[in-house]
């Protein structure tokens, strides 16, 4: 359950270490901009805003009062719109992928029926779907949610199928010899036994949802972090692009924490989520 060096002080030490690395990265960023470093891939650090400028712009984006332009204080409205799309797309993907994954993992016939289709569609990246989606759905929120659903669906599905297949046959035998019906073997044994794997799939799917968000929102959307970044790029506002990236990164990180801790709160002490 716990790593060799456990305990409160050791945990604090590890947190400090992680924080130190972050501070180091920001420090190098600062020096690189000042010194106009040119790195591998021809990365011209001189083109980047300094960390302090980005921090000030981020503050203004969230709370206003610094520059007082159209950008000031709009973070929450962008974030709200994007979160709605992420949740809709992710929720739909989970609602479809988990039941299908459980059935595919448990029943050969269902697996035989859906596996070829899954393997055919899975390698098509979301970027390749964009032109078609724009033609048959059109710009906007629906297209974004569709792309998110599509992208989050496969990792959730594959993790669910894998988790169901790895349920120890012993647990099924135990349930059967206690007089459990076929339906309840699925609901009371297979599903809880595969929950840790399903949760792993959900976490990957939710992470991907934020990635695909930027792609979906880059066309014909007013409010949303992706559209904000797209607009900033068109205006050559590197500082705003970086601010948008940071906000999306934080949103993705926080949504993962909320998912994991929310589930842990529901499951309490039951060992149904892998310790992270």
């Amino acid at each position: 359950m716990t790593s060799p060096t456990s305990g409160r002080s050791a945990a604090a030490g590890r947190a400090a270490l992680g924080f130190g690395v972050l501070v180091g990265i920001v420090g190098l960023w600062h020096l690189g901009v000042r010194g106009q470093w040119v790195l591998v891939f021809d990365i011209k650090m001189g083109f980047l805003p300094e960390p302090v400028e980005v921090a000030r712009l981020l503050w203004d984006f969230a709370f206003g009062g610094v520059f007082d332009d159209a950008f000031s204080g709009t973070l929450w409205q962008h974030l709200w719109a994007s979160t709605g799309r992420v949740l809709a797309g992710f929720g739909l993907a989970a609602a479809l992928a988990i039941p299908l994954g459980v059935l595919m993992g448990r029943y050969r016939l269902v697996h035989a029926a859906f596996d070829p289709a899954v393997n055919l569609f899975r390698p098509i990246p979301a970027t390749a779907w964009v032109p078609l989606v724009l033609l048959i759905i059109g710009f906007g929120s629906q297209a974004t949610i569709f792309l998110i659903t599509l992208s989050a669906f496969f990792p959730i599905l594959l993790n669910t199928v894998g988790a169901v297949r790895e349920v120890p046959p012993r647990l099924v035998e135990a349930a059967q010899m206690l007089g459990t019906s076929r339906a309840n073997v699925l609901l009371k044994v297979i599903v809880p036994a595969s929950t840790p794997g399903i949760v792993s799939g959900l976490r990957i799917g939710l992470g991907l949802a934020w990635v695909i968000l930027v792609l979906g929102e880059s066309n014909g959307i007013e409010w949303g972090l992706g559209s904000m970044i797209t607009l900033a790029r068109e205006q050559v506002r590197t500082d705003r692009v970086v601010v948008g990236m940071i906000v999306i990164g934080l949103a993705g990180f926080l949504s993962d924490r909320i998912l994991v801790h929310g589930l842990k709160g529901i499951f309490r002490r039951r060992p149904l989520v892998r310790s992270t």
Partner: protein
Amino acid sequence: MSAPDLSRLTRHTEGGRVLVDDLGKRYGGAGGVDAVAGVSLDIAPGEFVAVVGASGCGKSTLLRILAGFEAPTRGRVEVGGRPVTGPGPDRGVVFQDYGLFPWLTVAENVRFGLRQRGTPRRRAGQIADAFIEVVGLTRFADRFPGELSGGMQQRVAIARVLANDPAVLLMDEPFGALDALTRTQMQHELRRLYREAGTTVVFVTHSIEEAVYLADRVVVMTGGAAKGVPGHISDVVPVLLGEDRDVNAADFNALERQISERVHAG
């Protein structure tokens, strides 16, 4: 430990008769290996039968067929007068690796079968509590299996099947993964529980001492796919040592040696 009266909690206290007639099992279709062949056995209601034999002689195969986890390729198996067609709650199984549900507490594990078979929540809880008390785990009722020692987990597994009131208890090396001290303790407890619950028991073990200590009859199996002969029953030895058995007594040791010779003769 004051044991609650088990007979009040179970509906039928008499065990079921186990009838095995000319049983054969071949794994892997026509060209496969015969794990067991020609196995016949008649176990009286309430009898305790131990099955011993070298590794690969088909003990688990026999037990899994009785449990309904495997279908025989030939022969007939009846428990309590009814042919075995699949797993069922009339035959409780205790596995070497416990097979507890890790996401359920001890209490939830023990009442799982009762709930599945439609026993009302309150009644199921009462029965489960009584059996948890019988195996001495009342203080651990709200713990999860992962928080318990192997011996405690196996107690939970035993309470779980007994609470389900089976006619036959099928145990495949249930104490095989336990240390010697815990094992001896569990043997004592199983004997006590067996007397109170009154079920028929089929108990597979590698330990001849354990078999002689627990059983009314010891079934010796020999052969096995690896030996080129299908596994079969070579001897059935009655244990006429009475109720209070002393593993250090001369007659106990003599019987142990006699069975050991038959196991190794195969």
